[in-house]
């Protein structure tokens, strides 16, 4: 009886606490974040990828930040201006910003950072048009471009373009600089206090942060938890406050029922993760557009989304992510139609043989996840219905798969490709005839060539008028979807999960989500 009474008192107390809890952000507390991946270093200037970007954007500030409507806002930059001809971009820094070691942030650091990006970052197109950089005074940086480059503003944001201190990273081979992973010096809301490689890292509030009153959280513990089951229990127990890039439908289903946890697909539109079935258009029978279209018709995207992914993924219709302002609108959705698929194969001259088989081909998929294997098996079963015999191939690991696809040693592969904000950065690369480069992951691995598409992309990549740009990308996508070098399936089912009793202002309300500064997050 006494036990019951105590329990009731506790419950009453916690209700009282909950109801008096202020909705306003407050200072203090430790946020524990866990992720299945942990990068070797946190210098976003020489690596992309979310394991670098999540901690990287806490440690390093960028020139701009974007809201969830794709609008730029001042961050390290106080103001910015693109000249009418689009060839000069002027950025003015705020004058109260310092690096974690107390040094002022100057235009020299901005110049050094963007030059480092240009030379070392995996994404060439981000700063390729930057020909020279002037620093007329301590706070002003002027970028001279070889052609108009609307993507540059997005490239100045979050994990795509942080500012790194020249006095720390300016000497020697930057890839081998020990301060990419220890004693990191940035200017972001948090400082690196401790880093155990591949295990955990502790970030501490930067008291000298240039955004007044921010950040709210005193400390962030970033833990690596590989195992899905362990991850689930950690979230349920409250050992972990937040995780991101959760994909497992079973995990999501289970955690959805927990009233303390909120699951959200928001915050992934700039990363723009798409999953698709790619065809090697240089291999028979995929050199024929009708065959590619037939395959696209034969796959039921809704089945994949609702059954294989438990409804957690979203349909994607073309090269650009549905969360983008350039998302495809008026394109062929390739709604499931087996009869149409068969007649297209007939037209292409692939009639059924005596055994009913029209085509023998192979399918690769990304190793290491049950979801990919299930999807490969579904595609095989579905294509069998239109007389296609598919042999599923596996690779020993992720690297081996990358190698196989990058060297064009495949017929079809299931793939996952990110848009990375602006189409110039993450979309053009998949379709440009000039970007067929064996050995490089996620180039135009389909070896797709259409001069008209190239022409439109060139134009759209330099168009400063956003409305005109939108029209161009609609045109481009209509052609590409019709050419079908890729059968577009769905978005990656990424979700951010956070403890709603503990976390206020979760970092999900911007296009970059968790890969943007967590300076407004607070502990309730």
């Amino acid at each position, binding site marked *: 009886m006494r036990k019951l009474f105590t329990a009731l008192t506790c419950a009453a107390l916690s209700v009282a606490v909950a109801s008096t809890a202020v909705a306003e952000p407050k200072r203090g507390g430790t946020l524990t974040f866990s992720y299945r991946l942990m990068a070797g270093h946190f210098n976003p200037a020489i690596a992309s990828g979310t394991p670098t970007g999540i901690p990287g954007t806490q440690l390093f500030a960028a020139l701009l930040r974007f809201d969830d409507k794709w609008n730029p806002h001042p961050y390290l930059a106080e103001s910015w201006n693109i000249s009418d001809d689009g060839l000069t971009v002027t950025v003015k820094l705020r004058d109260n910003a310092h690096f974690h070691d107390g040094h002022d942030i100057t235009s020299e650091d901005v110049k050094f950072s963007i030059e480092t990006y240009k030379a*070392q970052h995996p994404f060439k197109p981000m700063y390729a048009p930057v020909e020279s950089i002037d620093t007329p005074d301590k706070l002003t940086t002027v970028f001279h471009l070889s052609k108009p480059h609307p993507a540059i503003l997005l490239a100045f944001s979050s994990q795509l373009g942080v500012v790194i201190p020249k006095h720390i990273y300016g000497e020697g081979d930057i890839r081998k600089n020990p301060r990419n*992973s220890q004693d990191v010096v940035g200017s972001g809301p948090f400082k690196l206090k401790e880093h155990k*490689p*591949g295990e*955990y890292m502790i970030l501490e509030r930067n008291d000298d942060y240039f955004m007044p009153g921010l950040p709210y959280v005193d400390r962030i513990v970033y*833990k690596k938890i590989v195992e899905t089951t*362990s991850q689930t229990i950690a979230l349920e127990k409250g*050992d972990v406050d937040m995780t991101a890039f959760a994909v497992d439908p079973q995990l999501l289903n289970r955690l959805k029922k927990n009233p303390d946890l909120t699951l959200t697909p928001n915050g992934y539109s700039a990363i723009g993760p798409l999953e698709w079935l790619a065809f090697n258009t240089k291999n028979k029978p995929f050199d024929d557009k009708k065959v590619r279209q037939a395959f696209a018709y034969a796959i039921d995207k809704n089945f994949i989304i609702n059954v294989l992914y438990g409804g957690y993924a979203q349909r994607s219709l073309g090269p650009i992510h549905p969360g983008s302002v350039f998302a495809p609108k008026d394109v062929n959705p390739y709604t499931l139609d087996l009869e149409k698929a068969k007649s297209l194969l007939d037209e292409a001259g692939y009639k059924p043989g005596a055994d009913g088989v029209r085509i023998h081909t192979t399918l690769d998929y990304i190793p290491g996840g049950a979801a990919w294997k299930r999807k490969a098996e579904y595609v095989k079963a579905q294509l069998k219905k239109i007389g296609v015999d598919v042999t599923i191939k596996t690779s020993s690991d992720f690297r081996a798969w990358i190698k196989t696809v990058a060297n064009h040693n495949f017929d079809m592969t299931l793939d996952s490709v990110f848009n990375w904000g602006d189409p110039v950065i993450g979309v053009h690369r998949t379709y440009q005839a000039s970007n067929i480069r064996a*050995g*490089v992951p996620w180039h135009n691995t389909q070896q797709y060539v259409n001069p008209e598409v190239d022409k439109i992309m060139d134009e759209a990549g330099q168009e400063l008028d956003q409305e005109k740009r939108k029209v161009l990308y609609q045109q481009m996508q209509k052609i590409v979807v019709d050419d079908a070098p890729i059968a577009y399936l769905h978005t990656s089912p990424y979700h951010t999960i956070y403890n709603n009793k503990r976390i206020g202002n979760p970092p999900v309300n911007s296009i970059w989500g968790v890969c943007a500064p967590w300076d407004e997050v607070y502990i309730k």
Partner: protein
Amino acid sequence: MKFLSVILQRLFYAAALLLAVIVFNFILLSLVPGDIADTLAGESGGASAEVMAEIRRSYGLDRPFYVQLGTYVAKVVQGDLGKSYYFNEPVINLILERVGPTLLLVVTALVMAILIGTLFGVIASKKPNGLFSHFVTVLALVGFSAPVFWTAFLLIVLFVAMLEIMPLSGLADPTTPRDTFAWYLDVAHHLILPVLSLSSIYLAQYSRLARASMMDILGSDFIRTARAKGLGDTAITYKHALRNAVIPVITIAGLQFSHIFSGAVVIETVFTWPGLGTLAFESILRGDTPTIMGILFFSAMIVVIVNLLTDLAYRIVDPRIRSARNA
């Protein structure tokens, strides 16, 4: 003098073995498709050909294979295991950082398994058809057959999720100040479940082994002589029989110690235990050649040392081996 030359000979073999380990592993690793540039490009979600070439140049991967091998061997001979491509830290630091947790986990599990297993085996052997003996047999069967990750998850569900008395993962809570008394306690707390899971297999083996071995010994002539002398049951069991019965236990323990790095990988992954096993596994997936080579070299060295020690342990436990080898 004889003893010394035996030791010297052993050391020479050990050095040759280690060199062979380096060369063969280097060749094997070079046969794996993809390198660190592919890994980094993969993690970055894409890359340009120029940056990939730059990474390969930076790590010397653009040189011919034999030059890379030669450079590596020359460095190892000088005691330099190089720097991890992935972590950009000296491999030796990564290994030393992680060898402690692995040894802590594996040695604790092994010692527990040997002590409790042998004890169970000895008690069971005294009444081979008794209730306890059957219990040990069943325990051994279950412990040995159950996949270790399954055991681990059952323990997690019971102690972490339901009873909530055990921590879930890691070596310690990252926010506990390191090397304080509270930290050591925290480590001990975090150690319990991984050790229980890992020792479940070993415990099974040792209890069976000790039981069989003891029953064998207890039936032999010298035990009968001891009984005829009028020695007590306890003295016979624990002084005469046990000493002979532990010889196979030592052999197996020595052998198993060589497997520990592989055996602990699963447990380390489930409990996010920051040990060498996970480092090795992940480095292989990443193509982080210096780290893999360093771990292989290090574990080969441990195996060589343990084999030497096992040999010495035989000599101490069994005087016949000592005299036979010295004769």
